[in-house]
């Protein structure tokens, strides 16, 4: 087993992938393999070490120390504590369990649909998923030919009692071999993990995810600590989609640590188990670690009886409950076996995390009276079975209980409950801590494992199983995981939210567009396909995680989507791949941030990274959308900026745009590509954001503030006009290295803008306006500007104050250079543009 060599990004950038899968057990390994084989870029994180489990020396203590979580001593607290055992290594618990396989019993389907409102989940639908996973894991039965002596003894006992039983299928290649022989058991290390690595998954072992990073209601990555020998380092890994597959304890713990608590960790179900050792008159072959392959189903679903793995050490551990009295049994360990009675727990447990405590996960399950009863009955039936199988003594794992020497003694537990305090209990089956389904009162995820309230965060492990299936849950976990990951891929494909991104499948791009889902970008893509020169172009759009790209892909089937972010250089390199000779329209940027540092991160550094990627990809021309803010405000109301006007940036946004222009100019001067800068003032038109609709609404309500006399002028750019300018800037060779102002034919006074919108609302669309004005003295604007400056000096930003501060300024430009050199001829007047804008708002359900 080896970690993929490209697992670690040593460039210093945050590692990123389309999908991060946390946990490499039954759910996670399958999820990672399926995604990678379908061309998704996947990072697989595993808390435990990457140890080839077949190389572990045949010393059980080393295996326990190296492969088990908490050395096999995870406690489940309650009236009587239980020991929970799970793997913590690459492959998870599949590396340390017996490889037993059960399909989901039919009653579970109907119960889960009724109680948890689980959609799309019927035996018929799941049949194919079980079959596929079973084929991958070589699930099989050995039949009588593979029956060990221990198995035969158990079967004969069961048959003599006339009880129902079954041979349990196992995930192993040679069904007649011991499950623990080399290469036999088909754990994740032998199946899905090699497939995942082969398909390009980057696997990082020894990586403990501390929390899922959330921003604005989305999962954007994980914060993890990676241990390398005695050292550890904090890592941040960014991702478009996250699958949490850490098992039924660690998955809810991680979600809760990350602040996600709705129905998380409240519904833990377990199968409490009690064990007993039996001594026979003759030698049995328990010591070869072959677990009896039969299970008693007579008392199912409440109780299941079967064999457990045997070593002398584990026998001694079981006998240690009454060591002084039972130690003599070790003399006959070759005649002994260990067996179990597993019950279907009937209570609900919980998982909680202790704040501020590293690995402070507290698991609680309070055994109730019914559980106590079932465990007592289970032990009674187990003893009955063992005596029927020829046992001469049964040693129950009960403190201060004597050796049982007859079936009658065992049957006494049918009448009298064994005190819980006497029981030494364990479990290896835990599940249901994040149940899936549509019942909002019970379920943490939807019917396919998507965490409620998130569109890119999924759970895909035993946590999802809504309640106890009464059988080993590995089969159900894996079939459900396969179903869910395929549903995810189909859904992503349909919505184009997360396009698969193998280079071989990425078509060549003639045009690249950033900010394509924005106001300007969408119209620009429409105009590209309306132009004869670019009607057949392959257009690739950079789309932020979680943005709906369907309006873009609906424009043409030649529109491609690359998920990325200006703050993520690797995504920009992907965006620019196979774009030699292309034209890049850079329309992305931030104007109203939460914190002013975003101006620099996005408008400056983001542009710098984008230009570097474009240069490396051989992009021919870059058309960059800049802003009037780089130049500032006109000195008087009759003044117009032109391309020779000096930089005088208006606050943080203006400074970032001025710096961005400098970066572009330098790249052009270096010969990285041809660059054209287009300065656009306040633009308007269809696809406008909410803040522009608010502008209409305020005018309608008579609440739009007019500072001073309203004669200050603003250049505006209707998006169609602006797109015309952008396309000309892209097309004309002589434009390379130039800067152009692109706006409507003339600048408008604030009064004219407000009057025009009012006129359009009333006379074009019959929308009544109050026809009043909120007139404020000009000094209000000055005060707002001062407040804006003070806030920004502190790194803060308030959109309303910023806009108010600009309202008494004249920001107007001349478009003469564009008209002369580009042939730019704006076709839409203010009124025509506003009519189109209001129409779009009404057609798209905007509240005016």
């Amino acid at each position: 087993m080896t970690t993929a060599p490209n697992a670690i990004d040593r460039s210093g950038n945050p590692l990123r992938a389309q999908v991060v899968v946390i946990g490499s057990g039954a759910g996670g390994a399958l999820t990672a393999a399926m995604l990678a084989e379908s061309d998704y870029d996947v990072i697989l994180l595993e808390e435990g070490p990457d140890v080839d489990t077949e190389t572990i020396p045949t010393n059980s203590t080393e295996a326990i120390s190296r492969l088990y979580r908490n050395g096999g001593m995870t406690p489940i607290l309650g009236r009587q504590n239980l020991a929970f055992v799970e793997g913590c290594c690459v492959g998870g618990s599949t590396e340390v369990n017996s490889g037993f396989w059960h399909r989901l019993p039919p009653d579970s389907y109907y119960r889960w649909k009724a109680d948890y409102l689980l959609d799309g989940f019927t035996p018929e639908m799941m049949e194919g998923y079980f079959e596929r996973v079973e084929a991958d894991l070589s699930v099989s039965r050995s039949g009588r030919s593979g029956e060990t002596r221990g198995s035969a003894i158990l079967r004969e006992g069961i048959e003599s009692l006339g009880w129902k039983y079954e041979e349990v299928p196992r995930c192993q290649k040679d069904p007649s071999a011991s499950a623990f022989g080399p290469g036999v058991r088909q754990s994740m290390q032998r199946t899905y993990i090699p497939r995942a690595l082969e398909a390009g998954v980057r696997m990082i072992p020894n990586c403990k995810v501390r929390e899922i990073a959330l921003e604005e209601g989305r999962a954007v990555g994980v914060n993890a600590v990676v241990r390398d020998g005695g050292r550890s380092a904090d890592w941040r890994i960014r991702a478009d989609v996250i699958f949490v597959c850490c098992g039924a304890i660690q998955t809810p713990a991680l979600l809760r640590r990350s602040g996600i608590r709705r129905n998380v960790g409240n519904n833990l179900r377990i199968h409490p188990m009690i064990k007993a050792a039996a001594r026979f008159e003759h030698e049995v072959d328990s010591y070869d670690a072959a677990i009896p392959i039969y299970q008693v189903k007579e008392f199912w679903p409440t109780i299941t009886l079967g064999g457990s793995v045997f070593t002398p050490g584990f026998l001694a551990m079981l006998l240690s409950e009454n060591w002084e009295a039972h130690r003599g049994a070790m003399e006959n360990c070759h005649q002994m076996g260990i067996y179990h009675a597993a019950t279907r727990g009937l209570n609900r447990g919980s998982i909680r995390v202790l704040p501020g405590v590293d690995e402070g996960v507290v698991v609680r399950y309070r055994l109730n009276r019914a559980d106590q009863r079932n465990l007592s009955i289970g032990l009674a039936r187990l003893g009955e079975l063992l005596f029927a199988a020829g046992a001469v003594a049964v040693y129950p794992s009960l403190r201060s209980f004597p050796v049982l020497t007859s079936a009658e003694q065992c049957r006494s537990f049918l009448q009298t409950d064994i005190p819980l305090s006497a029981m030494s209990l364990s479990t290896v089956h835990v599940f249901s801590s994040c149940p899936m389904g549509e019942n909002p009162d019970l379920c943490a995820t939807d019917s396919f494992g998507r965490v409620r309230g998130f569109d890119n965060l999924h759970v895909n492990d035993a946590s999802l199983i809504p309640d106890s299936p009464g059988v080993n849950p590995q089969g159900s976990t894996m079939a459900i995981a396969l179903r869910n990951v395929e549903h995810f891929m189909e859904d992503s494909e349909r919505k184009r939210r997360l396009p698969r991104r193998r280079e071989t499948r990425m078509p060549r791009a003639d045009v690249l567009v950033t900010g394509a889902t924005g106001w300007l970008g969408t119209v620009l893509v429409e105009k590209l396909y309306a132009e004869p020169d670019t009607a057949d172009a392959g257009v690739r759009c950079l789309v932020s995680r979680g943005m709906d790209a369907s309006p873009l892909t609906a424009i043409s089937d030649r529109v491609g989507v690359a998920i990325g972010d200006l703050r993520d250089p690797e995504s920009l390199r992907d965006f620019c791949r196979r774009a030699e000779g292309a034209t890049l329209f850079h329309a992305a940027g931030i104007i109203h941030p939460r914190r002013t540092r975003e101006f620099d991160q996005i408008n400056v550094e983001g542009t710098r990274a984008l230009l570097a990627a474009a240069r490396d990809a051989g992009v021919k021309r870059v058309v960059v959308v800049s802003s009037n803010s780089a130049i500032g405000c006109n000195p008087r109301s009759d003044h117009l900026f032109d391309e020779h006007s000096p930089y005088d940036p208006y606050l943080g946004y203006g400074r970032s745009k001025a710096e961005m222009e400098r970066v572009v100019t330098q790249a052009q001067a270096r010969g990285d590509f041809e660059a054209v800068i287009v300065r656009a003032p306040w633009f308007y038109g269809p696809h406008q954001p909410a803040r522009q609709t608010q502008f209409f609404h305020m005018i309608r309500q008579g609440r739009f503030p007019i500072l001073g006399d309203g004669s200050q002028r603003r250049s505006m750019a209707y998006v169609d006009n602006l797109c015309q300018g952008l396309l000309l800037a892209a097309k004309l060779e002589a434009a390379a290295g130039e800067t152009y102002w692109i706006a409507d034919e003339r600048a408008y006074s604030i009064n004219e803008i407000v009057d025009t919108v009012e006129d359009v609302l009333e006379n074009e669309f019959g929308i009544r306006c109050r026809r009043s004005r909120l007139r404020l003295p000009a000094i209000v604007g000055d005060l707002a500007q001062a407040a804006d400056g003070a806030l920004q000096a502190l790194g803060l930003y308030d959109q309303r104050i910023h806009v108010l501060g600009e309202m008494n300024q004249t920001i107007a430009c001349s478009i003469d250079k564009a008209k002369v050199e580009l042939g730019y001829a704006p076709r839409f007047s203010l009124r025509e543009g506003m009519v189109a804008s209001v129409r779009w708002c009404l057609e798209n359900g905007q509240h005016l």
Partner: protein
Amino acid sequence: MIHTPRRLSQSQRQLVAKIVGLVLPERPSLSAPERARVHSAVTGFVASQIEALPTFMALPYRVALLAFQLLPTLRYGRRFDGLNEASQAAYLALWSEGPVAPARDVIKLIRSCALLAYFDHPDVRSQLPMPGGTLPAGSAAAPASSAP
């Protein structure tokens, strides 16, 4: 973030070694060097198991070990490691068989882990009445989680 030191201190480890020595059975009989080797390996395993306890249990467990070490001063005027072997055994039985459940649990962890490691140690297994004597390849990977 609170981190509990993972490693047992030297004195804690010596205490664990002493308890392990008391709980290990005399049979099968081993030569003195073999027994010393087994005792050392078993102590190492038991210590690693205590060190592997979840954080919220690790601190109380170490406090309990300290109490186990110091409480004999109230009765014997000496710490546990200063008692003679018979007194140590009696005091250990008081904890492991007494009415106080948490005290029993403290010793139960050490005893059960020690017995597991002892009987699965190759030197001990070779003395047991079992064919082969040593565990088959890979068999140790599963025993604790033998799944029904």
